[in-house]
């Protein structure tokens, strides 16, 4: 019973945050709702006994990505006072397409026979994770660092343009 209650609390966080993200006009609130959703996701991981993933979720998504998004919003002038409508003429098309997409994904998810186990994981899952990172998945592990390098180079090149522009303005 207790775990259902906790599950529903996290669900309220996730779904409430999700609805908040799309319904509010204020971008700053959207970003705050996003971090609420992401924290709720971390709660799911805890319920699934995946503490490390929960911490990763919080460190990377709440601590880094959400902060980055908040920064981006705060640094953009006039973004807060935007009075443009939230919807455009294709609202109805979107209203049809997105439920269809949801059903398609649902069908796919239901077709897979997910192995379900009610037992708590045995052994230290973290050590197994580390061994897999540097065992069977060592090439993806190395590729990640290249990916991060590319991401950083791209980000710096993109950000530097605006950097020099506003640098003179200030």
């Amino acid at each position, binding site marked *: 019973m207790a*775990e259902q209650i906790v599950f529903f609390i996290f669900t309220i966080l996730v779904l409430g945050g999700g609805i908040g993200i799309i319904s509010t006009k204020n971008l700053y*609130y959207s970003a705050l709702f996003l971090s609420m959703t992401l924290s709720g996701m971390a709660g799911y991981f805890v319920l*699934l006994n995946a503490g490390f993933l929960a911490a990763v979720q919080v460190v990377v998504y709440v601590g880094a990505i959400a*902060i980055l998004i908040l920064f981006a919003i705060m640094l953009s002038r006039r973004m807060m006072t935007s009075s443009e409508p939230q919807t455009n003429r294709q609202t109805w098309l979107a209203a049809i397409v997105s439920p269809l997409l949801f059903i398609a994904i649902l069908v796919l998810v239901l077709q897979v026979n997910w192995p379900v186990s009610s037992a708590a994981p045995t052994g230290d899952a973290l050590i197994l994770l580390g061994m897999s990172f540097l065992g069977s998945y060592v090439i993806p592990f190395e590729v990640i660092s290249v990916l991060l390098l590319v991401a950083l180079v791209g980000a710096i090149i993109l950000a530097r343009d605006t950097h020099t522009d506003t640098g003179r303005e200030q």
Partner: protein
Amino acid sequence: MEQLINWLANILENTSWWGLPADVSAAVIVWSVYGFILALVVAPMAMIVLTWLERKIIARIQDRIGPNRAGPFGLLQAVADAIKMLTKEDTTPAGADRVPFNIGPGLAAVAAILIYAVIPVAPGIVGTDLNIGIFYIVAVGSFGVLGILMAGWSSNNKYALLGAFRAVSQLVSYEIPMVLSLITIAVVAGSMSTVTIVDKQSWVNGGWYLIAMPVTFLLFFLSSVAEVGRSPFDLLEADSEIVAGFHVEYSGLKFGLFMIAEYVHALAVAALTATLFLGGWHGPFVTQLTASSPVAGAILGHIYFLLKVGVIVFILMWFRGTLPRFRIDQLLDFGWKFMTPVALLNLLVTAFVVKLFQPGVSTGMGYAISAGPLASFGGVGQTIALLIANLLVAFLVSLAVRAFARRSKAQALRAVAAVEN
């Protein structure tokens, strides 16, 4: 549809490993009491005691007397402050974004309190022994950053916003060296659990990590001080520049909550430093005493732990009393161009030394790891080797810094010469 219902039912049923109703054991009740005491007694007390202590110590450093009117030695000064905070009118600026403005301080305080969940205060006494202990601390810290950003932005005040920007760029910059030094500890201890890390610092296993890894200690301690935003890294509140930074518009208890967050966090950093580097509750006779009488051992463990925490807290206040504030460009340069590269180098060197002392293990994955060439020297040998490696790192870094300083000095002289001509 039936499938969907089954699927949902499955989710709800199969989380039943969290068997709370099956055995609402004594342990859960003990934990709850411990948790509530921690949050509702220790946190406000930490703030009350530490503010008094800080004002007194800094006053002595500056050749003043400090608070001395309320009660003996001014001891009741902090209580008077607390009463004032409770009874002071709480103004919210008209232009503020009310909801995030009110959530911000609470979030910062909650995040600071949550750190204590994994700090072992005595043998067998810890909130919860998470296997991701030190990573959990990093994760919880993220919420504090979010609280600061919310407070700064929602205040609708230029100082507050500037303070929040400074705060967040400082906190994210110093999180990297802090995390890297935590990884270094995890490599040496072979675990992220704070309880295991303390166990590994017994004299049999090689002693305090402060002795084995002074460079890691400095990296961790300095970046933690920056994470709390205390002097000399107190740019985020910098009273003389941006009047108080992100909490300039707060008054009454909401301001008090930010103070609680700061002091509770500072105490947590001291406790964490004691846990990770000063051997936690380890001290003479604790292990022997715990074997014969767990209660006496726990009390002695508490005493040693609090003594170590006290020393670190004093160092934090000493910093505040003596060191001038960084400038923001110096601060960020120090974080990114000095701490981060040194932390990366230190991590790799430490990992190499640890590999030399690798004990032979069978992995259960179809292969076994043979013992390292120096494994027979054991924990003490590893401590000595790590110390030598750390000193080597420090020496190399000092050479690099000297070369860098020479070059920038030459550049500056050339620039001056060019202007004079």
